[in-house]
C-alpha cells in the first residue's frame, strides 16, 4: 500500500520521498522502494489517470458565457464550482476515473453540486451543449453515463477502508493521489489471487 502511495505521488509530480513516508508509519523506506517496479509492471506502465478538476473549471467558464452571468450569478457559480470540487474528490476514490472520460465526470460532479445549490437549470445547459456541438451522441446516453458515475460514488463511498479514512484527515489534497492509489490497490488484488 505504501509503495502505491509513493508511486502515485511520484507519477503525479508531487514527490514525497520514501524516507518521509517510511518515518510516518515507522517502516523501513527500502521496503517501499523495493516494490516500486512491481507496481509499474502490474499497471503495464499505464500511469496517467485523468482527473476532472480542470474539466470542472472549463465547464464553469463555459456556463458563465452560456448564461451570460451577472455578478450575482458569478458568485453562485463559484459556489457551484467549490462543491463540485468536493464531489470530484469523492469520485477520485472510486473506479469511475478509470471508466469515464474527465468531461463526463465533471458534468456528474456539477450535476450533483447543482442539485444541492440550485444555481442553474442544469438540464437546459446540457441540451445547450448538444445543440451547439452537433454531437454524435444523444442526451440519454450522457444521462446514463452520469447516473453510472453517481452509482460508483455511492457504492464505493461506503467501502472506504480505515487507513484511507485516517489519511483523509491530514490534508484534502491527498485525495487526489489516493484516487490513483485506489486503482493500484485494485490491480494489486487481481495480480495476487
Amino acid at each position, binding site marked *: 500500500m505504501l509503495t502505491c502511495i509513493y508511486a502515485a505521488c511520484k*507519477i503525479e509530480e*508531487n*514527490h514525497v520521498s520514501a524516507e518521509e513516508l517510511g518515518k510516518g508509519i515507522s517502516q523501513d523506506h527500502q521496503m517501499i*522502494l523495493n516494490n*516500486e517496479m512491481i507496481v509499474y509492471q502490474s499497471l503495464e*506502465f499505464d*500511469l496517467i489517470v485523468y482527473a476532472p*478538476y480542470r474539466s470542472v473549471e472549463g465547464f464553469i467558464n463555459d456556463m458563465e458565457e452560456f448564461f451570460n452571468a451577472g455578478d450575482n450569478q458569478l458568485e453562485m457559480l463559484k459556489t457551484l464550482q467549490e462543491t463540485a470540487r468536493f464531489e470530484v474528490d469523492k469520485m477520485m476514490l472510486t473506479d469511475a476515473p478509470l471508466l469515464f472520460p474527465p468531461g463526463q465526470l465533471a458534468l456528474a460532479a456539477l450535476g450533483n453540486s447543482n442539485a444541492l445549490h440550485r444555481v442553474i437549470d442544469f438540464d437546459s445547459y446540457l441540451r445547450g451543449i448538444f445543440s451547439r456541438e452537433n454531437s454524435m451522441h444523444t442526451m440519454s446516453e450522457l444521462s446514463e453515463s452520469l447516473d453510472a458515475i453517481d452509482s460508483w460514488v455511492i457504492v464505493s463511498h461506503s467501502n472506504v477502508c480505515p487507513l484511507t479514512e485516517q489519511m483523509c484527515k491530514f490534508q484534502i489534497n491527498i485525495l487526489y493521489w489516493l484516487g490513483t492509489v485506489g486503482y493500484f490497490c485494485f490491480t494489486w488484488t487481481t495480480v495476487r489471487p
Partner: protein
Amino acid sequence: MDHSKKVADRYLKREVLGEGTYGVVYKAIDTHTGQTVAIKKIRLGKRKEGVNFTALREIKLLKELKDPNIVELIDAFPHKGNLHLVFEFMETDLEAVIRDRNIFLSPGDTKSYLQMTLKGLAYCHKKWVLHRDMKPNNLLIGSNGQLKLADFGLARMFGSPDRRFTHQVFARWYRAPELLFGAKQYGPGVDVWAAGCIFAELLLRRPFLQGTSDIDQLGKIFSAFGIPTAPQWPDMVYLPDYVEYQYVLAPPLRSLFPMATDDALDLLSKMFTYDPKTRISVHQALEHRYFSSAPLPSDPDKLPRPAPKRESRVSDFNSQEGPTILSPPRKSRRVMPGRDGFEGNSLQADKVDASFGDFRQTTDDNTGKNESAPMSVDFSIFGLKPPNRPTINSADRSYLKRKLDLEFQ
C-alpha cells in the same frame, strides 16, 4: 506487453548507439516482428529514490502520445536490475543534418523539417504536454525521412491553474526569455521559442543564439531582436529574475537571415515574439503562409541524408548471434551547387563567431568547394571546431543536482 520475456528471448542486441546521463542506448532486433528497435537501458541500482524520475515521465507521457511525428515507445520492462525502454529505431537526427556540410538543404527541405517539427509539437500541445527540451538532436529522423520528437524526460503536462514549474528547462541556446528571467508559470510558448531557434538554425546551418551563461544568452537575444520594450512585453518587469539591459536597437531581421524569404522572416518574427501571450502558437504557425507558398515542403523520403556515423562500438553479442547484416548501400546524397535566392545557400562557417553587430553575410558560392569533401564531417576544412552544444553544462550543475534529487516539479 509480455513481461516474462527476457531481452535475449525477444530482443537480439546489436551495437551501442550512444550513452547518456542515465544509461546506454543500443540497437536491437525485435524477433517477434523483425523490426529494428532502439533500447534505452536505464540503471536502477541502489538509487535513493527508486525508479528514475525522467524515465517514469517518459513512459507516462509517451504512452499517451501516438503521432507520426513523435517517436514511438514500443515496450517497457525491467530486466536484470535495469529498466528497458524500447523505441522505434531512428537513423539519425536533425543536428547531424544541419552539421553535414556535404548536404545542401533546399528551401523546400528546410520547410519540410520545420513542418514536421511543428506537427509533432502541435500534437503534444493538443494533449497538454510541454516538451521542454526542443533542440535539433532531440529531433530524430527515420529511414523514411520522417522527423519525430524524442526525449520526453523533461516533458510534463500543463494547463492546471496555479501549478508552478521549474524554469531550468531546455538547453540554454533554446531557452525562451521568460525562462531566463526565472518564470515559474509558463505555457506552450516556451516550446515555440525553441522551435524558432531550430528554424533559425536550419536557415543558418549553425546554432543561432549561442549564449555561454544565462546573462549572456539574454544579451545575445537582445542583440538579435533589440531590448524588449514595455509595450512589447508589459509583464516582463514582474518576472523573478528580471534585470535591465542596456538599450539596443533591433537590427533588421533581414540582416540576420539575408537569404530567407519574406514569409520565412514573418514566421520567424512571430515565433520570436517576446511576450509569450502574443507569441504565435504552434497551430497558428502551421497555418502560416510560409508552408503554403512555393516551394512546398519536400516529401520526407526525398530529404537528403547525412553520411552514416561510425559505429561507436560493436557488441560482443554479434559473434554469438550470427553475422551482422550490413545495411544496404544508401542512395547517393544530393549535393548541389548553391544558387542565388535559395535559402541556406550561405555556408560562411568563418562567420560563426561574429558578433551580430558586425554580422555580414556574402553571397559567394562556397558549396562547390565541398563537393569533393570526405564523407564524414571534417570541421578542419573550415578551420574551426564544431560548437559545443550545451545540454547540462557547468553553469547548470546545481540544476542537475536538484534534478537528480527530484526537488523540482
